[in-house]
């Protein structure tokens, strides 16, 4: 096929991100400079973000069979790019701005890995083809192994990285096998082609059902849904805070977006088996995630378990797969990204600059309010938002999920959601009240006093204000999202 200017315009975000990766690499080869690499990365990602309106204008547009840029893709690209910019900014603060203090190894490659993973995410959200799905997923996953193990002289980080790699590769193997089975039966790799065959038969062949099941398992690994969640807490704990933030936001958003698109072509409700499987996964993720989070004394592990539960809530919308479902997922993911970035942002700033271990034990946050009121306010808003309390963005997301559940009459799943939220409130409140308790005498970690004036701090404050404003006045976001449909 011929490539015209239109094609290049819709691909601009992806092209710019890849070009930035090359530029940063060349920059490192020429001369190592931390700030320069950071600036290049942010500028590149920012340019990609700015090119989105142009891409949106030319959409929907297919570029080869693999990629299709439409409104849906554009929205998720924006979300991923924003999350990446935030993570890169956090990483800059985390690694340390001056030479000699902070992270002792080579700092610049972290940006390279993040840029590559971002490019993978962009491919993933705009693909409508199983091959594109696999390429995007691997491009997203492989750099994250490096990201998790970036602080490799820390035993936990290395262990987390290896664990992530092994399990992720196992997930990919499932995925590939599933794709192969689907291809064997339908002879097509595009979502639409598989979907047509799927819908054509009243009782799809066992092979195609098995293929879908395996595909689902593979994606569930990446989304850490129960029972494929075992890697999550260890990896979250081991990964340096900005890397964990990236894993929790950009990476998961991209995978969930592709899953959602897949299900739009193959509505889950069309086979009872898949429907039940998803419902069981949702209930299990909500309950297991919340229950295991109850007794955590490590904030990063706690957030890991809470993310399992949150993706359980999201699967409810996937099961419903009708009415408001797509919109609900978009809203929920947007609020979730905002909230998770905020929470990990606070952990990052508390651990800034890098000094061996992150500040992630809950007792290290005791009495934070009385010495860092604004940082605490940010974390408080994030915890309330994760718990879904009004005045925060998280409430709007939860409201949407419940609305979808009611609309599709999924009473059992709603019951699990209510129960899960009640359990969840317990540990979010535990974190919150810790922040306000009397402070201990001994403390190892603390955020730098001028955190609010640095890039990371400014970004964090913006995230917190957004989370608050969206909770009070969500209309602009909703108006934008109600038009985000597939195709």
């Amino acid at each position, binding site marked *: 096929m011929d490539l015209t200017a239109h094609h290049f315009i819709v691909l601009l975000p992806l092209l710019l991100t890849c070009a930035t990766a090359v530029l940063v690499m060349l920059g490192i080869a020429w001369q190592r400079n931390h700030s320069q690499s950071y600036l290049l990365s942010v500028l590149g990602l920012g340019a990609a973000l700015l090119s989105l309106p142009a891409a949106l204008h030319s959409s929907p547009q297919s570029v080869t069979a693999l990629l299709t840029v439409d409104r849906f893709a554009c929205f998720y690209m924006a979300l991923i790019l924003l999350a990446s910019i935030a993570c890169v900014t956090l990483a800059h603060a985390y690694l340390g701005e001056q030479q000699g203090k902070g992270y002792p190894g080579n700092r610049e490659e972290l940006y390279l890995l993040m840029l590559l993973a971002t490019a993978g995410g962009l491919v993933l959200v705009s693909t409508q083809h199983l091959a594109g799905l696999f390429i995007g997923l691997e491009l997203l996953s492989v750099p994250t192994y490096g990201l998790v193990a970036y602080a490799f002289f820390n035993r936990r980080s290395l262990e987390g990285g290896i664990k992530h790699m092994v399990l992720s590769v196992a997930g990919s193997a499932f995925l590939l096998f599933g794709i192969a089975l689907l291809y064997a039966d339908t002879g097509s790799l595009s979502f639409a082609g598989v979907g047509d065959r799927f819908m054509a038969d009243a009782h799809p062949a066992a092979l195609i059902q098995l293929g879908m099941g395996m595909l689902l398992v593979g994606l569930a690994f990446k989304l850490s849904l129960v029972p494929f969640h075992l890697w999550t807490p260890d990896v979250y704990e081991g990964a340096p805070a900005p890397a964990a933030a990236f894993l929790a936001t950009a990476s998961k958003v991209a995978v969930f977006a592709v899953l959602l698109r897949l299900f739009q072509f193959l509505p889950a409700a069309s086979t009872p088996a898949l429907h039940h499987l998803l419902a069981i996964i949702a209930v299990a993720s909500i309950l297991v995630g919340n229950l295991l989070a109850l007794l955590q004394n490590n904030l990063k592990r706690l957030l890991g378990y809470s993310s399992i539960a949150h993706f359980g809530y999201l699967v409810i919308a996937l099961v419903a797969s009708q009415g408001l479902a797509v919109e609900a997922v978009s809203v929920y993911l947007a609020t979730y990204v905002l909230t998770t970035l905020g929470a990990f942002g606070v952990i990052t700033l508390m651990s800034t600059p890098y000094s061996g271990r992150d500040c992630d034990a809950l007792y290290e946050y005791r009495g934070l309010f*009385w010495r860092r009121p604004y940082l605490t306010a940010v974390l408080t808003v994030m915890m*309330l938002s994760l*718990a879904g*309390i*009004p*005045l925060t963005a998280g*409430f709007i997301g939860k*409201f949407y999920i*419940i*609305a979808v*559940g*009611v*609309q599709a009459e999924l009473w059992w799943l*709603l019951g699990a*959601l*209510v*129960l899960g*939220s*009640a359990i969840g*409130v*317990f540990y979010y*409140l*535990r974190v919150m*009240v810790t922040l*306000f308790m009397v402070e201990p005498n001994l403390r190892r970690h603390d955020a730098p006093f001028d955190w609010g004036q640095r890039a990371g701090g400014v970004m964090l404050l913006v995230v917190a204000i957004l989370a608050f404003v969206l909770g009070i*006045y*969500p*209309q602009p976001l*909703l*108006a934008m999202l*109600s038009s985000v449909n597939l195709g």
Partner: protein
Amino acid sequence: MILPWLVLIPFIGGLLCWVAEHYSSSLPRWLGLLTMGLELLLGLWLWHQGDFQLAPAAGSPPAWELEFKYIWIQRFGISIHLALDGLSLLMILLTGLLGLLSVLCSWQEIQKHVGFFHLNLMWILGGVVGVFLALDLFLFFFFWEMMLVPMYFLIALWGHSAADGRTSRINAATKFFIYTQASGLIMLVAILGLVFVNFHNSGELTFDYAKLLQARLAPSVEYILMLGFFVAFAVKLPVVPVHSWLPDAHAQAPTAGSVDLAGILLKTAAYGLLRFAVPLFPNASAEFAPIAMGLGVLGIIYGALLAFAQTDIKRLVAYTSVSHMGFVLVGIYSGSQIALQGVVIQMLAHGLSAAALFILCGQLYERLHTRDLREMGGLWGRLNYLPGVMLFFAAASLGLPGTGNFLGEFLILLGTFKVAPLIAVLASVGLVLASVYSLIMIQRAFYGPAKADGVLPGLDRREQAMVLSLIGLLVLLGIYPQPVLDTSLASMDGVQQWLAAAFSQLISAR
């Protein structure tokens, strides 16, 4: 434009209190006092110049004394819709008054982080005012959940842990939060269910009260949705099987927290029943009425018996609240106009008397540093004023004629007797038990041999002013309740019409 200001004033005042802490530690207190004074004055001014003949009633589009509407989330047909009728006005007056008192009663008690304390206090009150004014179901839920967070902080950060160390203040606060949050989510599911059923029938996605009143519901759906609302209100009221957060929360909360909790937060549940659960689902409510009244009687007797057995004076008062709110539940579901008017009086009178009792408990604690009745005794001779005042409020709580409590309970029993004689007879057992627990409290605390010698400091001016004004109001409510009854008449009339129509339909169906 006055209605949004009623909601906004406490929120803005709270923020100012927080900021003011940097300048002086007493400035937040004065600002809090000013904020709540302004709120109360606005309420009084509204009372003075309104006539309150307008209230929602069955069969016609709801009419309001004052209304404010602003489109908020267009996507779902959600608007910031506030409206005022007699019932909401009375509740707002109560909120303003008790808000003022809770600022006053923490003047000495709260010494650390004064600004943040007042921020939380003001935000609770703002949320409560929002609940009393909201007419959009989403907005109502928004405020309903929002007041939990500051209350949580109030208990968790400034509360007292129990002497025996069994229940810490953080556990109590968390229990309170989880109970109300989980039941709130069930209500949210029911709200959305109602909205989508209405959307299905009429094609309009809206959360507006007036429009949802017209929703046509199948009987079974109506019953289930009603239960969803009832669960949330039952937890907050509290109704007996789901009451266990209340004694813990009260016992551990600082005085101001207890005053707000007993005086106003419990009333939001009764208000929710009157404003939402009954009018939106009249038929299901009528069908459910015998069960609800049964639960009410259970609460009256169970609360009274447990109150009698307590050794912690604040827990004792907390259980009396369970008992008194049982009367409210009986009155609401009796569907008789006299009983419904009694409910309003009972809500106001209980708000005043429970607040007073908690303030007095706080003052006792400040002097004795214990809430354990076993360590009190013989205080009558050692304390000036306080025992006498306490005796008055104990008498009010047992329903002595001349106080508002008597009037409320009497009207409720009178109205209920015509509808459900058995329930009324059983409920009046509560009055007997009330005198038992009230008197035993006075006996244990103030009579008998003294545990120590020496005179304790009596009440100072601030404390005297607080309790004396409450005595005055309670007596006024008891002997001249007519202005209050006039104000709430139209609102209660509406509720009564809804229930009466549903009851007659139910009887003809049998």
